[in-house]
């Protein structure tokens, strides 16, 4: 019998609407928890979950809630979409209500449900639970009033059946990041659930410096190939001026103890 596996991952992605510089939704002070949790359910079983929404501000706040689809950009940024994507499972979802009001310092236990159809195929889909504040009007630099609102997207992965990630290193390269030009792994997920790399690697750069590397923990979605930068450090300090070529060797891990051996010379 297929199992339904529901993975919910909360992220505090505070976004804004409107083309303004440094807009601030002054009264949007929502805190959402827990940051991450997982659920298992059988097909046909209804699973109810609770997201706690706390108003950290002193005054009552109104929040609007809905579901959305989302995509993950190359830089790890999330883009939300109200439009239903072809593989969306938002139709499986029911939410408590579309609007809530939380007094200052109050905590609202907001419920939502996921009901996988009895014939759901194994695999993973995803959606987001969006929590948005009332629009506020702020003044732009040139004095124009512009409505903005704060929002938080709680990302939800829904994995049906015995689905799992299957990560493979498709290629190696170097990548320009805010931490400098670093070695990177192009990781393909041939499985049907998302996965993340972790672990430790050792290496040496062209100056003979002995380094430690660790991979970014960005999620790699099913069917996707994602560039995973390897951040370098010496002792406790990050290294941003690597001298190429750089040799990196060791083991990266994913899932429940799955491992990939790396022994690679990175050149610019």
């Amino acid at each position: 019998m297929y199992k339904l596996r529901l993975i919910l991952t909360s992220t505090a992605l505070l976004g804004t609407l409107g083309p303004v510089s440094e807009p601030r939704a002054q009264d949007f002070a929502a805190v959402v928890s827990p940051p991450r949790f997982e659920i298992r359910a059988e097909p046909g079983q209804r699973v109810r979950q609770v997201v706690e929404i706390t108003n950290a501000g002193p005054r009552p706040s109104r929040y609007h809630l809905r579901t959305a689809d989302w995509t993950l950009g190359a830089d790890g940024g999330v883009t939300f979409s109200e439009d239903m994507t072809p593989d969306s499972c938002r139709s499986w979802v029911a939410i408590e209500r579309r609007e809530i009001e939380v007094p200052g310092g109050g905590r609202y236990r907001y419920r939502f449900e996921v009901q996988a159809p009895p014939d759901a195929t194994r695999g993973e889909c995803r959606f987001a639970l969006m929590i948005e504040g009332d629009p506020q009007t702020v003044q732009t630099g040139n004095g124009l009033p512009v409505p903005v609102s704060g929002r938080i997207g709680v990302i939800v992965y829904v994995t049906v059946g015995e689905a799992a990630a299957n990560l493979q290193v498709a290629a190696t390269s170097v990548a320009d990041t805010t931490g400098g030009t670093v070695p990177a792994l192009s990781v393909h997920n041939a499985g049907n659930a998302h996965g993340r790399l972790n672990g430790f690697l050792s290496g040496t750069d062209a100056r003979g410096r002995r380094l430690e590397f660790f991979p970014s923990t960005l999620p790699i979605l099913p069917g996707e190939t994602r560039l995973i930068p390897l951040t370098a450090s010496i002792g406790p300090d990050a290294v941003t001026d690597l001298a190429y070529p750089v040799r990196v060797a060791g083991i990266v891990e994913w899932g429940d103890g799955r491992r990939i051996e790396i022994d690679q010379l990175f050149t610019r």
Partner: protein
Amino acid sequence: MAPAAAAYEDRLIDGGNLPVELDVDDTAGHSTAGWPRAMYAEAVASRIGRDDASTNEAGIRFGGMLDTPGFGAFTVDATVRVAGSDGQESGNMITLMQRGMPVSSEWFMNSTVGVAYSPMGDLARRQARFFVPAIQMSGTSVEWRRTNQVQAFASYGEPSVYSGVYIPTVENLGGRQAGAGLQLNLDERWSVAAQAVDVSSVPTGLDKSSPRISSRSWFGAVASEEGGVRTQLNVAGSSLEDGDAAAGAWLDAMVQSGRISHSFGGFYLEPELVWGNQQLASDATGGYYRAAYRSRRWTLDGGLDYVSSVSGDSGDVLYGTGYTRYQYSSRLGYGGGTSARQNLSDSSLATRSSGVDDLRSTAWSAFGFVDAGNAWGIGRGQLNYAQDSDQDSAQLSLDQTWNTHVGQRLSTSLLFGRVDLGSRTENSAGLAVFGGGNFGRNFSIDANARWNKAFGDADSDDLFANLALNWGFARGWTASANYYQNRSDGRFPLTVESPVGIDPTYERLDRSDSGLYLRVRYDWRAGLRTAPLGGSPGMGTGRINGVLFLDENDNGRFDASESGAANVVVLLNGRFAVRTDASGRFEFPTVVAGNHSLSVVSDNLPLAWNVPAEARFDVRVGVRGQSQIELAARRQR
């Protein structure tokens, strides 16, 4: 052209008619006028049985905090205890602490009245190997600070010790102490400090019947810190009423060179060097060197100590120690260490005190461990072996911190030991469990039990069990019950420690005691709800619960076999103070949401346990959340 698709509309559970589940801030109804303030009051009753006797104690405890805009923060902590059949064990205690009172635009004042400690300059606290002990007293201490440039302090009072079990109070020991000091941070590199303490007719032990001492002691230091190199020269001296005098000096240096830090120093300490009524490290000369390396995967450190007796009463001792830990993968780390102490002189010179293996005898120990993440949490397996001239012992311990739901905690330890005493061999096994959690909004349980059974000729068992229940039965009101049982034959595993700077306070007492404690507590707070402790207007609040514990295996986690540290002051943001209870626990019930730091005033930690004065423990508090934090005190290796 096809019409635009309508936006998807979510389905609603039960048509959107689910009942609302909303928690509101249940302290919000209190007055919001005035400065932020909080108080608690407790009524406590307990019965403690010790050996064949029992004592009933009853009392009240009161505490409060007040945060003022112009006079800093105030904390008060008071107890009244009635105990003993005719009240002969009764006592009371009150402490008022004030932090951060602006005296001028540049000067701030901290002061304590009640149970205080002789204040210490920052340089006196910042010691690598030798500790200058603080003197507990009933009296007053005051400290003035001018930004980061000047620190001046003074104290006066009657030395005291803590007494009581669940209701802490103090016993004044008689005599008096007076102290004062000054530290000047001359520039970004140089600092100098001097301080002195004078005691008159003060017991040298923990009770009034101990021999009394009158002495004057002084301490001076000069420190330089620049470019990863820090050196500090310390000098100290003391003179007794009968004319005996002693002096000493020690130099500590630390060099950060790339990934490796080096620390080294030398010392010369004459016999009978004292600080007030307490013994400083004395009758020792020698040096030490230690190197350490830390990366994301590796932790390595090792050191060598050499110590000789100034008086010649004891032999020369060489001590070496090494430790390594390697993080093999995200779920697996392993390591080990060894220590060895070699008496280089005639072993007959090695002094012995009754019942305690002298630290200067020849001995060695080794241990290895594996830390592994597993499906149930995080586990550690550790094997210890130690040997000296009288015994060799081995112990296997298996610690597991179990995955639990948020708000719950569980850790367990299994212990197996074998001691060969020459004439006989003892085997032992033990089990320890620590767990608890919050069940619903108003009920919590914490339980801690350690049991150790020795087989063979010894045929004895040690037991420590503690069960605590808390029930919030009405707004602001909490009822608590706590039961403990402690039975020990006073044996400790053999440890091999450095002879430099260690003043062991092992207490080898056969004891058997138990206690039952009942408490009713009322918490109240008022003032601007929008400006709670550490906060600013418009912020929500949460709670910090924590425990200060003695981290026996140095893994930073409160394992089931480890103990809390009682009666130690913990500071929130360096401003608000609480004292740990008999189990090492503390709480700040109303703290503004956000990031905070905790620090420990380790004056009352048992030697050689220490939390560095500069150590800060970061804690994040969520609105209406309860943050759990474990503060580890470490023993100097």
